[in-house]
């Protein structure tokens, strides 16, 4: 099982903060997005992380991973 998490404006746009799903074939961050959000392209300026480290959308995910999608950050 992998866990998808959404934050800030992206969470509001999608209407939920978390999705969990089982994957049975190789997937990347972007292909998992497409699987779960077939009606929305992965926005170009959305940042992606796996297990709390930044990755590119081409990063391969595996069961047990936490995959996060969020807008550009604005701390400080």
């Amino acid at each position, binding site marked *: 099982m992998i866990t998808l998490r959404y934050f800030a404006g992206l969470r509001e746009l999608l209407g939920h903060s978390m999705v969990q799903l089982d994957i049975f074939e190789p997937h990347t961050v972007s292909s998992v997005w497409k699987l779960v959000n*077939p009606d*929305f392209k992965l*926005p170009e300026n959305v940042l992606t992380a796996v297990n709390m480290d930044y990755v590119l959308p081409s990063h391969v995910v595996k069961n047990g991973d936490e995959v996060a999608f969020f807008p550009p*950050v604005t*701390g*400080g």
Partner: protein
Amino acid sequence: MTVKICDAAFDPFVEIQNFQHELALSGKFGATSIFIGTMRDFNEGDNVQAMTLEHYDGMTQKQLTKIIAAAKTQWQILDSLIVHRVGEILPNEPIVLVSVWSAHRSEAFEACRYLMEELKANAPFWKLETLTTNEKRWVSKPINHELSVL
């Protein structure tokens, strides 16, 4: 090297004083550089009455720890402290404190600037402003979303 995420108002000067008091560096440091970020009551021409700071708990601490580790490879810093607010914030309340201790001023100045710039670029925080009109808006650029071509 300490990272603290606070969900209530903090006094940066008390944080610095307490941290420095506990440092086992008496006589070793000659420079302390400090940056404090404070919430304004205006942004982009609008009056702001409050702000909510969201973060990705766990990733925030992980990224800030990595940033500090990267700074230590570039400068001889003796210790550092990062404190960042989350939750509901009002104008004039501190948002962030970055403080660096080193033997000499150049390392403290440069590492403090580096930590702050890297925090702004990489730490997963997001600001949601409440204007005095009660309109709410995310500070980050709009998400370029579009429907997939089915």
